[in-house]
């Protein structure tokens, strides 16, 4: 326990330590936009995996105060189909062990799957790990990453329900036991 607390404090100190080239990044995941529209059935089924399971309008904000660590937050809002609207926020930390391009990340996302017809919310929060590479092209950047969730806590506004918790490597383990997703973010650095 002590070790975990010290590690968190150390990471926090590193992430907030002063750095003359501190950078703010604002980006978006372009693949998520078409998912809120009517696509061919198979595109609607499979493209979300390549869009990090983000739907519709989305924005990511990253802040790098030193070369090793960056904070990042993401927001995505969109319809997953005619009956459900999805809101999700992510927050986490990226660690750059070698240079400013290759990184590993630890994130937590919270999503609300809202059934618009029954007006029931299904809330979930899941930690996930990422590995990625960021291409810096002047002030423009393209960030590519693989994400893998590993656990989930769920609760709902439906009457008579209590929260559930479990390991979560794939939404459909009977079909694919482990399902990483891919996210591509394009944006600008300030």
């Amino acid at each position, binding site marked *: 326990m002590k070790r975990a607390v010290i590690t968190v404090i150390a990471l926090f100190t590193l992430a907030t330590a002063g750095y003359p080239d501190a950078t703010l990044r604002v980006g978006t995941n372009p693949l998520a936009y078409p998912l809120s529209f009517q696509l061919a059935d198979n595109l609607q089924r499979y493209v979300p995996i390549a869009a990090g*399971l983000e739907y519709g309008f989305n924005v990511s904000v990253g802040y790098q105060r030193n070369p090793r660590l960056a904070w990042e937050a993401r927001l995505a809002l969109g319809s997953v189909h005619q*009956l459900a609207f999805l809101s999700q926020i992510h927050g986490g930390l990226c660690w750059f062990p070698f240079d400013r391009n290759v990184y590993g990340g630890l994130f937590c996302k919270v999503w609300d799957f809202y059934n618009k017809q029954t007006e029931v919310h299904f809330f979930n929060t899941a930690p996930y790990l990422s590995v990625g590479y960021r291409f810096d092209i002047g002030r423009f950047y393209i960030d590519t990453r693989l994400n893998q969730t590993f656990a989930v806590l769920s609760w709902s506004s439906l009457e008579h329900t209590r929260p559930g918790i479990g390991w979560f490597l794939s939404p459909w383990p*009977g079909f694919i036991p482990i399902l990483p997703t891919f996210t591509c973010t394009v944006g600008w650095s300030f």
Partner: protein
Amino acid sequence: MKRILVFLLLFPLMVSCGSKDTIIQSLYDISGAPLVYDDSGATKTLHVAAVCMCCSKDKADNLTNMEAMIDLIVADHSEIDLIVFGETILGWYYDPADPQVYQWGLAEQIPDSPPYDTAVARIATKADTHNIHVVFGMGELDGGQLYNTQVLLAPDGTVQAKHRKVHLIDTDEAGGFTPALRSAADALSLTITDINGIHAAMLICADVSDYWLATEINERGVDLIIHSLASFEPAFTIDAVSRQFNAWEIFANRCGQEADTDYAGNCYIADPAGTVRAGGEGAQRYEYTIVRVY
């Protein structure tokens, strides 16, 4: 330029996949940890079984198999109220050799009252003998058309309700089936009935993806979805259909090899939170639970 960019980025917030007929369920529909649904205070109960049956190409074999499954379930659970079989369970779901000839050969007329043709008559006798409800799928001949129909037999052996599949897929069309009309006034396409005071909607396989039908059912609100399928998909952790309607779901399916298709035998009963109460995949069997409704 900036305004145009902002508009394009925000535009997806203003749309909701339109009113396209087909709902493509997402991975989010089946994501999350199973929730605990506390039905201890429920006032209405229904003892139900979902049958996963491996079908022969021969109709007589399947009828004998269905009768044996009904007898087995009643012997194991004398309190059983409702037994549900899969879609077009009198034969293979799809015979690639000659799909239309095969499906027309299996089909029967389903009059609203006796005398019934072979399949309905035999299963109706079982329903009457055991004093239970039985649901099963079969091809129905009516007015020179072939429908993919689900029959609900009452405990006295009469037809309580029929549902005709609205949302056909390509293999249904290849088999020569005609879709039911999308009409809220037609009890054959929007079929909602009461079983022991529990409000139940009847669906056949891809009907669940039909936006019109889903909307009509949700507007009325039901306690239970009686869902007969022919699905080869493996088991789910979370039931998307229960969450679509926030109702109990009986997911009765088939198993085994039929020509090139291998049915995994995914069959279950889920509560309104989408948590599977009884289920799994594999060989021929039944899943049993008590549906409790507030």
